[in-house]
């Protein structure tokens, strides 16, 4: 009998209670490591806890927030250049998207009070805190812009609210990129350079799509241009991001949603500057394609991030690369 065996009867020759060696009775004995684990894994287990975010809440919030913000900016541009039809359609669309994004955010938080509790502080280094305040500052202006336009009351106030919402809308459309890049999820974190451009482009494309879908053909030229520019920025940012991230960018390169999003956005934007200039039906189809493309891009980014959080190699590899780089720098110095 081994001295380290633990017995229930507390025999004199055994070391019991606090003296006992944990797991020495055999069943829980520590296993010997017979081989080195692979350098890109952590015993095959995820290093990070997967974020508890659900795609139908948070990916939808990313899409709807971008649509609201960019639609307000488009509405302000349309109002200042004398296009009331496009301005009204964009203002109403922005208000609807704002309502939808608030619903998704509060559904994810669980209780509405949690959103209000976030207003108790303002922390400039926290994208979530800054985002909450952007949303709070933007919401009333977007509401006032839509309400005054629909009722015809207080036109001066409506114009001021439209311009204010247009300015705050640019922040609303892009802060979500900082929000997800500030997490430990490898794909989102490593893509911090391109993510704001990707989100800005995607938001502009979706707002352009909504403008093409809803506004009269004669006034939809700025929406078509926004859609084309947004799609170009989105595609360039996405391809640059996938190349720069190297092995960490694998989930992005594998994502079917991202490929579908790019295809739909490109098809919508190209249709927008060709057939949609003359045909109402084509304009609506192009607008719908742009909206669907932007939604696919946001959901694709979300799912790629989740995939990278669940696979330890996307966490371990960049860490090891950074360590190797530091070591090399130290040796050179």
């Amino acid at each position, binding site marked *: 009998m081994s001295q380290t065996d633990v017995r229930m009867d507390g025999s004199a020759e055994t070391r019991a209670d606090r003296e006992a060696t944990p797991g020495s009775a055999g069943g829980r004995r520590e296993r010997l490591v017979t081989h080195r684990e692979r350098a890109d894994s952590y015993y095959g287990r995820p290093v990070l806890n997967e974020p508890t975010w659900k795609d139908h809440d948070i990916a939808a919030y990313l899409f709807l927030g971008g649509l609201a913000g960019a639609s307000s900016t488009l509405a302000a541009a349309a109002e200042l250049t004398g296009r009331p039809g496009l301005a009204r359609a964009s203002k109403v669309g922005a208000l609807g998207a704002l*309502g939808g994004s608030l619903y998704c955010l509060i*559904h994810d938080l669980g209780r509405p009070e949690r959103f209000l509790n976030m207003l108790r502080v303002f922390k400039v280094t926290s994208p979530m805190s800054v985002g909450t305040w952007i949303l709070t500052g933007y919401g009333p202006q977007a509401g006032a812009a839509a309400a005054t336009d629909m009722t015809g009351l207080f036109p001066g106030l409506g114009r001021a609210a439209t311009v204010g919402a247009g300015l705050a809308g640019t922040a609303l459309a892009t802060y979500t990129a900082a929000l997800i890049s500030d997490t430990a999820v490898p794909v989102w974190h490593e893509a911090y350079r391109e993510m704001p451009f990707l989100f800005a482009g995607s938001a502009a494309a979706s707002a352009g799509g909504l403008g093409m*879908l809803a506004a009269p053909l004669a006034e939809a030229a700025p929406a078509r241009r926004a859609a084309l520019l947004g799609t170009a920025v989105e595609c360039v940012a996405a391809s640059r991001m996938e190349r720069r991230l190297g092995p960490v960018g694998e989930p992005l390169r594998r994502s079917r949603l991202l490929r579908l999003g790019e295809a739909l956005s490109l098809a919508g934007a190209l249709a927008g500057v060709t057939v949609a200039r003359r045909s109402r039906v084509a304009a609506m189809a192009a607008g719908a394609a742009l909206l669907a493309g932007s939604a696919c891009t946001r959901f694709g980014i979300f799912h790629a991030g989740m995939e990278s959080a669940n696979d330890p190699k996307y966490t371990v590899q960049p860490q090891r690369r950074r360590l190797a780089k530091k070591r090399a720098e130290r040796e050179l110095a």
Partner: protein
Amino acid sequence: MKRNVGKVVEYLPFLGIVAVICTTSWLAGRSSLAGRPSLVRTPVRR
């Protein structure tokens, strides 16, 4: 099968929100034409 149905149900609020946004926006765009005779198609009286 049941799991797929559950998945689809989870996305219904999002799809509903997008449908409402598109419809209200389209109606707002149409309503802006009402007071502007130059953009409304009217029958030609002979």
